[in-house]
């Protein structure tokens, strides 16, 4: 698949859970996550986000996050990554689900983004 999905959350369980939810409807979409801190604590970590970018099988990534400070780390990671990363200020669970379902059926990015626009909450 051309596009992959990266989930960034302050909490490891949320990131892992969203991956589980969306993989059900998007078996062929690569989904990687950066959840919480290295020590298991609540927070986000730029290095873990970089790893999620790198481990994703796709070279173009749609990235979703929960709270604003995750966005700052995401933006730093994007500046440092070679991949093409699209960042959305949308409802985390709902938009990751929507994007994954649409990517699975080979929807064009433009059309995926049209749907995501309606989920903007940040």
């Amino acid at each position: 698949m051309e596009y992959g999905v990266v989930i960034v959350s302050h909490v490891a369980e949320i990131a892992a859970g969203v991956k589980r939810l969306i993989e059900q409807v998007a078996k062929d979409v690569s989904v990687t996550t950066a959840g919480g801190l290295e020590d298991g604590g609540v927070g986000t970590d730029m290095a873990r986000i970089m790893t999620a970018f790198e481990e994703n099988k796709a070279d173009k990534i749609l990235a979703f996050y929960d709270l604003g400070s995750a966005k700052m780390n995401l933006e730093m990671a994007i500046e440092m990554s070679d991949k093409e990363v699209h960042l959305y200020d949308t409802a985390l669970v709902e938009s990751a689900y929507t994007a994954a379902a649409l990517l699975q059926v080979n929807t064009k990015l433009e059309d995926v983004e049209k749907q995501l626009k309606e989920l903007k909450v940040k």
Partner: protein
Amino acid sequence: MLNVEDVKKWMENFDNVIQEQRAYLSDLDTPIGDGDHGNNMARGMEAVMAAITDKDFADVPSIFKTIAMSLISKVGGASGPLYGTAFMEMAKIGNGDVKELIPAALAGIEKRGKAVPGEKTMVDVWTPASALVQKDALTVEGIDQAVESTKEMVATKGRASYVGDRSVGHIDPGAMSSGYLLKALLKAEG
């Protein structure tokens, strides 16, 4: 007029098809959903059969309530509350007259899921079925046609709505299982 034995036969017939078509129903749910409809229904119907087989029921509403509770608690997907509410509403009719039961089931599904005809859901089977049963005209062909009609629809309710236009060309899995349920009823009647 269904009695308790007829309802048991109905459920047996339905359970047989569900277990047989389990993989097919999940396959239908794969391109436009999460691929679990067959497993959901199979798990639900196992619970139903365990709850009614060799059990005595005072009347038709009692067995309907038991079926409803099993489906609500065991299906796990959208179809659980939908079929569960359908059987709950049928229980409220107080008798076994299919001319009242099917419209009541439809009303329950509509209340729970808020879908209207044309949204590519089980409502697209229950709506024509409800109309036909009142004219004593519910047939296997009529049911199959209603199920088939969902194929060309664009989903706007349920998980299939996420893929929008891409849902066209696929039969709705809940419509298919609803078709099985209604055909299992025809077989039990006779």
